[in-house]
């Protein structure tokens, strides 16, 4: 079948639309995630989202996204709180919550699942092998609404996010409400993770968030250029990965991440070469 024939299927069109939006959202906060301690919050949250999904599966919910979203956002807020509390080591708390959520999630699925193909289900949640291709209409709409919201919030708070990412102490000292914006960033990250879970599964989310930013950072040196470039990379890689996987039947998530990785290596090489010439 040719590409055009594939595009006749609504599920492929849905997947493309949602894929592009997710790619866009997940790349925007990549730089912030890479450069701040938020990176491990992101990783921890993806495991929490897995736990949330397991609970939703056990409760036999038809539309699990709202529940997973609620669980992840609440965890994000809690993690941020503990991270700021000097007495409890932030990273230890995150490790505890994320590994705990992973274990409980798998346990729940094992105990209560009625599905005949349990390991298949688990695999889907972890690696997102097909979820992007089986989205229902309501899930597509929810994804669109959330993505638009994330992009809007990012644009609206772009300068504040920059100030806080670059130098939180200075921002706070000169009157920016860093606590509020940190909370906002954590919530947005939670939303992105729940969205991205459909695309690549909970284990590969970090890749989707971090690779485009890292790639762009090889090539560009201002925050704006890196952000724009990361968004473009992310969308291009995701669309490429999606199409490749639909046409050749490879798992969606890992194909996209493989393309992201290839793009990163390419950028790294280009970065090295141009740096060599400049020196």
């Amino acid at each position, binding site marked *: 079948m040719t590409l055009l024939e594939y595009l006749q299927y609504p599920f492929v069109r849905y997947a493309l639309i949602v894929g592009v939006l997710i790619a866009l959202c997940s790349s925007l906060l990549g730089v912030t995630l890479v450069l701040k301690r938020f990176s491990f919050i992101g990783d921890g949250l993806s495991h929490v989202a897995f736990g949330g999904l397991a609970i939703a599966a056990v409760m036999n919910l038809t539309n699990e996204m709202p529940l997973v979203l609620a669980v992840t956002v609440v965890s994000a807020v809690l993690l941020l709180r503990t991270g700021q509390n000097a007495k409890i080591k932030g990273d230890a708390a995150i490790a505890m919550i994320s590994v705990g959520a992973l274990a409980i999630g798998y346990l729940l699925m094992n105990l209560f699942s009625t599905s005949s193909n349990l390991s298949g289900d688990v695999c889907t949640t972890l690696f997102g092998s097909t979820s992007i291709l089986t989205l229902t209409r309501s899930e597509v709409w929810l994804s669109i609404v959330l993505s638009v919201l994330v992009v809007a919030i990012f644009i609206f708070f772009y300068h504040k996010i920059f100030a806080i990412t*670059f130098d939180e*102490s200075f921002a706070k000292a000169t*009157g*920016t409400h860093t606590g509020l914006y940190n909370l906002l960033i954590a919530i947005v990250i939670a939303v992105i993770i729940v969205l991205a879970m459909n695309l690549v599964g909970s284990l590969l989310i970090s890749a989707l968030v971090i690779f485009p930013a890292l790639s762009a950072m090889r090539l560009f*040196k201002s925050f704006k250029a890196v952000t724009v470039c990361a968004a473009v990379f992310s969308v291009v890689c995701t669309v490429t990965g999606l199409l490749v996987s639909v046409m050749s039947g490879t798992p969606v998530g890992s194909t996209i991440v493989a393309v992201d990785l290839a793009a990163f290596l390419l950028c790294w090489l280009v970065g090295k070469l141009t740096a060599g010439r400049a020196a």
Partner: protein
Amino acid sequence: MAQLICRDLALGYDGGAILEHLNFEVNAGEYLCILGENGSGKSTLMRTLLGLQPPLSGEIRTGDGLAHNEIGYLPQQTVVQRDFPASVWEIVLSGCQGGCGMRPFYTKEEKARAAEAMETLSITPLTKRCYRELSGGQQQRVLLARALCATRKLLLLDEPVAGLDPRVTQELYALIRKLHARGITIIMISHDLHAALEDADHILHIGSTVFFGTKADYLQSDCYRGFLKGGDAQ
């Protein structure tokens, strides 16, 4: 009325006080130099003045029309991650952020202000450069320009010349003098006794003995002689 007043201030971390019963005030247009040995709590004092950590007890008041988001700050060390992609312009402009409130974008005036601050510090040619590729002295100027965007009234500088060579150090001191001459109040932490005594008009010495007063009084104090002796012994 003074711009900044500290009454019976105690500071420290998690219950352990580093300094107690600190009293001093800074009036508009003054140049206060904070002296003291390593670990005496100078940076802690500055962080407390900025509201980055709560005082253990006592109070810090601002007056003379100074609002809390009108203080410019040059940190002792900005641990900017090695890979942070940011242009000089983006960083200087971010100094205006405190005055933005909920407004998402910078106004024309704020951009003009950032450009002016860069002009003052002669870093206009660096506008498009990447911050992490600058030399230490250039980075320090960029951060000073950012601090200048945040205030027209009061600058807090934490060891602005640490790690700079003598020539650049002198240039930076000259710049700070220039800003002071424009009417900006300066509070500077320094280990450079010589420069402190040259430019400052008030001295706050913290450590086992605390001194606050004018420079002339400081030169007569035991505190000063003790500090000199300590310096000689090294």
